[in-house]
């Protein structure tokens, strides 16, 4: 039934278009406009350009004002503010270029629309102009490259040696997180050791593994450098922490790194957001203002299969003391999985001994 309706509708549409087509043709013949170089349509099209310009830029200015409140809050990492600054600086420059070129691009069609009485100006080239508008963009680009280079160098510099080691491993379709424990060293891993229990393939032949622990949420201390050791065990994933302006692919067989310093605790961020109208809106699901349940989040940004869009993890940034308290309360993976380890032939007693 629906398909019959669709078919009839389609045929009707074609018939209507055919009629419109005929009418357009006949009218233009009747008016004799086919003989003229440019008809009324030329004027209509010409005037539509400035109109489109005004409406278009009006809409951009209007909506940019509205959209801001849904942008990410102020960066929560040290390098994040630098990236934001660079971003908005570049946006200002290209915004200006976009606007200025469009003023001309949408004004000229109107101004120089066809007139019988006029003829176009034969102006094939002007080398001075070409040089000017080659050099100006070149200078602007140089400035942007240099400032980008400074920030990039800063972000990708080696992590300080006292940085907290955290391991993040992507898999279909969630993240596993491991902390290095009191020794500050992550134990080795081996993908052949992975199974249903030992999801990260922690290798317990390495003594550094013994005090390592895993966690559900990612806890981070404010103000201390954190080194993320990133890997994947099946396909590509990508660690994206939008609030920290941080992204790095997780690659099977090739560990990657990213280090940064969180600058705002989750509580401070909630406090800050409570001042913003958009965050005071009530979330219909919880019945509370949105800022109350604000959380830093980790998302996957490299397509990894059907569950790609759901690889979420919560990040909790705390004051260093709170973090240390949490850290010391955690039980090591080894002590939680004694039975598993002994079934794999490890001497559990020995492992436990070397823990202190």
């Amino acid at each position: 039934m629906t398909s019959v309706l669709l078919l009839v509708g389609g045929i009707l549409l074609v018939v209507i278009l055919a009629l419109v087509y005929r009418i357009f043709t006949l009218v233009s013949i009747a008016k004799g406009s086919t003989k003229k170089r440019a008809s009324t349509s030329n004027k209509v099209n010409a005037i539509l350009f400035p109109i489109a310009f005004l409406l278009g830029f009006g809409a951009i200015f209007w909506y940019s004002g509205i959209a801001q409140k849904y942008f990410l809050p102020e960066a929560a990492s040290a390098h994040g503010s630098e990236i934001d600054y660079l971003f908005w600086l570049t946006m200002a420059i290209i915004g200006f270029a976009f606007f200025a070129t469009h003023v001309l691009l949408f004004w000229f069609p109107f101004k120089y629309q066809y007139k019988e009485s006029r003829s176009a100006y034969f102006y094939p080239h002007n080398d001075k102009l070409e040089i000017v508008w080659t050099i100006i963009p070149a200078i602007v680009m140089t400035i942007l490259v240099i400032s980008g280079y400074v920030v990039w160098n800063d972000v990708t510099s080696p992590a300080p040696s006292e940085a907290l080691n955290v391991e993040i491993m992507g898999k279909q379709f969630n993240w596993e997180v491991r902390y290095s424990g009191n020794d500050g060293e992550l134990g080795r891993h081996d993908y052949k050791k992975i199974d249903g229990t030992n999801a990260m393939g922690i290798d317990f032949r390495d003594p550094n593994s013994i005090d390592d622990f895993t966690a559900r949420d990612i806890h981070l201390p404010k103000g201390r450098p954190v080194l993320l050791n990133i890997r994947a065990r099946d396909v590509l994933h990508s660690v994206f922490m939008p609030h920290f302006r941080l992204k790095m692919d997780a690659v099977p067989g090739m560990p990657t790194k990213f280090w940064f310093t969180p600058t705002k605790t989750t509580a401070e961020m909630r406090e800050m957001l409570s001042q913003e109208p958009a965050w005071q809106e009530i979330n219909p699901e919880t019945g509370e203002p949105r800022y109350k349940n604000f959380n830093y989040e980790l998302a996957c940004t490299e397509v990894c299969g059907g569950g790609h869009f759901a690889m979420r993890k919560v990040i909790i940034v705390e004051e260093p003391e709170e973090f240390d308290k949490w850290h010391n309360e955690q039980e090591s993976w080894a002590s939680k999985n004694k039975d598993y380890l002994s079934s794999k032939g490890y001497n559990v007693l020995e492992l436990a001994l070397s823990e202190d």
Partner: protein
Amino acid sequence: MSTVDIDIHNTTDAHDHHDDHHHNENFFTKYVFSLDHKTIAKQFLITGLLWAFIGGLLSGIFRLQLGFPDADLTWLKPLLGDWIGADGKMDTEFYLAAVTMHGTIMVFFVLTAGLSGTFSNFLIPLQIGARDMASGFLNMLSYWFFFLSSVIMFISLFLETGPASGGWVIYPPLSALPQAMSGSGLGMTMWLVSMTFFIVSSLLGGINYITTVINLRTEGLSFAKLPLTIWAFFLTAVIGVLSFPVLFAAALLLVFDRSFGTSFYLSEIYIGGEALPNVGGSPILYQHLFWFLGHPEVYIVLLPALGITSEIIATNARKPIFGYRAMIGSMLGIAFLSFIVWAHHMFVSGLNPFLGSVFMFLTLIIAVPSAVKAFNYITTLWRGNIIFTPAMLFSIGLVSLFISGGVTGIVLGNSAIDIQLHDTYFVVAHFHLVMGSASFFGMMAGVYHWFPKMFGRMMNEKLGYVHFWMTFIGVYLVFFPMHYIGIAGFPRRYYSFTNFDAFSTFTDLNTFISIAAIITLTAQLIFAFNFFFSIFKGKLAPLNPWKSSTLEWTTPRLPGHGNWTGAIPKVYRWPYDYSKPGAKDDFIAQNVPYSETPESNLPMEQELAKFEKEDSDEVKKVNE
């Protein structure tokens, strides 16, 4: 002749469509396995347009999911079958399959084959004054390899396990391991086979274009007198010939990894409950190889559009293109630089940070020749006498999209900023404007402009205007808002955003985009109608409807095999003598000698005119 033609009093010359046919042609050699570049061009065009509708339909489907995440999609079941679950929800892997196929189809089948295939084929011989391509046979093969590739890709859409789904870039290991997603099974195999044929088609085409431009230019047509269209097609072909083989290599290694147990891209993988034996490979290697084609590919789709636009803007502004040499120079610059910026797609892939800064530097350099091009277009409009044909409108639209999409490339090319924006909707906004929409506009402009030469009839202008304004406003309404969504951090290739607090905003905007997309897509039906209806019922085209100066308009209304009935015209001047002071008309065709236009010659051209005289005197003597 049908009745429509009777009431049309246009001048068409009467002697053109009877005598110049080879009567030994049958239906097959004329329309199917044709060796004629014009027929092959039309084959590419129509196949490309059909693909455009399939690619558009797919985007409509996944935009429904994004715009209306809670909607019941049961009504799509007749089309999508089990991809819509019993609860009326779209399958998450199908979403990725649709995105992947949409990207593949649009980039390769529509904007590479549909654009270069059509216009390089159609215009190169006509604008350089050649009777056909250097090798008609290779040219025919080029189309039929494309056809074969199309058939395979099309069939893969209907596989039970779905077509390839890992994104149009098909990064391994996802694309290498059928365990990772169902689309990486047979669908991926067919993708690889199809793309292999596609690459063969592109190479055959490209080699032919290059050879033809170098060898078959008519007398007098030096490279410094070539229309910018030909320059653009020529450089595009060079880029393609140099970069497609690298994609072929990448695909071949992927085939080995998939089927023969090699480890080019695979290392230390645990999936589906087992540890795979592969060690030592690198997924990053694939990314390097892919983007070595992938980045030049965006210029493969863009340069022909820019070439077409240069031609159309000059013709309809009735002015020479401003800075002809600067235009060629910037195209050469872009073509060269396009090979050494690929790693800007890999800033956060784990690439060495030092390499990242080198690629940032090289990437931002590309902005300079691109800016020069934009300024030159705008200056060409300045003090013109502009006629708004639909082709002209699409060309001006292209310049706007080229700028608005291009400037955000400066943001993304900055490695520090790209940390945040990589793989977000900001990227989707950027490349849809600069590559997707701009090239698509170039293609539309080309169709409207050269339709009279292709089919001997005119398309309806009014419908063209409606089509332009709906499409122009439409693409901005669809793609501009994606910048906001991208700044807010929304990742691309996401089936839904409801899982994250950070991405739970902008739901209204996403609905708005989807509605705008569906309207814009529907507006393309106006074009489809206009195109197919005009082939049969359009009014007969005059010989030179746009009063253009290039050689194709010196052919008969519907050029037969061999293009010109008599001798091939000789070229004396550059293609942009529009509104030359002193000239009788507001254009002088390329085949008009300077000696016939003393009233408008510049001093140097007056000298050339003398030589022309001597030359032709000599020829006369020899003939006697």
